[in-house]
């Protein structure tokens, strides 16, 4: 596929109280940022499981962003502190087994940081664009197909575009 026109697919796991609301503020402020990132809302950054991130890669994401409230500002007092410990570890593990740090990024964005949200999304998208598609993982994906939502219309090509020659269910 044409690398020039390639657009990365990015999943963002965000907490309901700070980052999701910060993204709302970016919207009400009409700040512009790339459309590659889709938000998955959870209640607290403390509830994001590392498996979610693996699942996102398994489902063809080129990058993942995790974001929550700033330390000491957690709606639930300490959820983000537990999250931080978890990510400190997981990030090192992912790095060690060969997943570049830029593929998996983390941030604290408060409800009042609409600007920061737009900046972070822009930066993450650019970083991942520069890294190119996550072909290494996608190769693993292609080996054994998984069921994912039907794509009835032309406008949505199959998720695993790079390997569209392989048969998909």
């Amino acid at each position: 596929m044409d690398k020039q026109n390639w657009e990365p697919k990015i999943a963002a796991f965000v907490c309901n109280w700070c980052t999701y609301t910060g993204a709302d503020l970016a919207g009400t402020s009409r700040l512009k940022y790339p459309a590659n990132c889709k938000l998955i809302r959870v209640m607290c950054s403390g509830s994001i499981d590392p498996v979610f991130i693996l699942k996102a890669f398994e489902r063809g994401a080129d990058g993942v962003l995790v974001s929550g409230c700033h330390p000491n500002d957690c709606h639930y007092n300490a959820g983000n502190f537990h999250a931080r410990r978890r990510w400190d570890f997981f990030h090192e593990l992912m790095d060690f087994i060969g997943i570049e740090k830029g593929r998996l990024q983390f941030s604290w964005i408060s409800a009042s940081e609409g600007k920061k949200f737009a900046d972070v999304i822009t930066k993450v998208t650019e970083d991942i664009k520069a890294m190119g598609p996550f072909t290494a993982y996608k190769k693993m994906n292609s080996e054994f197909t998984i069921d994912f939502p039907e794509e009835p219309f032309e406008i949505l090509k199959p998720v695993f575009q790079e390997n569209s020659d392989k048969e998909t269910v």
Partner: protein
Amino acid sequence: MNELIKHARELLESGEVAAVIGYRQVSAKRTKPVIITDPEETSALVFNEYCLNNLAVYLTKARIKLLCKKNDKVLKLAITAKPCDVHSIVALIQENQIDRDTIHIISFNCHGVAKDFGFDFNGDNLASKCITCETHKPLYYDKLFGEVMETPQASDTAIARIKEIESMPHNERFEFFKGEFDKCIKCYACRAVCPLCYCQRCITDKTIPCWIETSSHQRGNFAWNVIRAFHLSGRCTGCGECDRACPADIPLSLINRKMSMEAKNLFSFVSGRSLETPTLVGSYNEKDNDELFM
């Protein structure tokens, strides 16, 4: 040795403990775990450089209940444990799997064990964990045997391997691990032998929703090994049993070792060393590393 047998016998005869988990010799360079409930059988107990197994894996809630419940009375369970096995016991106590008061720890001054059965015990064949071992004397015990002896010198090949992997670019590293994980046959021996894998139902057995794909393909193998390593991050005490058990020779304890290094590096924490220090998972410090976050 006679002291160990005598002690185990006394424990069983006095009715203080319901059973003794220990080692028995099967051939010159090979031992096997044994659970002894009859005082007469204690004579089989041994402790030497070939007591490789981490017997803490037998300390499960169900087994303790089965062994120790005697006529409405709950007796203690005695276990012979190397100093490094005591770390596992500490971790299990901290994770509410066993109660310190119901476990009688018989431990030894240890100078290392062989890397596997059948090898001569010397510097070349020293188990990897013994090379960097700092606890030749157990941190917790109820009875201590053995003399203090020098550990043979050996070079730390594991750390060199980690350094070597770290020097590879990311894509090579990814391919390396992908290749290693691809050897996995999902026998779950690593899980079975790990004292800290005590879950009644493992995450990989959870199918609704499906957390980890269990079919034997690259993606599932990858996910399983990553999550296994992550679940042990900050918990693994470094007994290295997974390495010994893995029929596919996946460098499991290498990843565990790397994560233990990170735990020490990031949080100054070593698992299973102290009953007083809060566990790494489940606690936090407001000053934890924040560099990761934009």
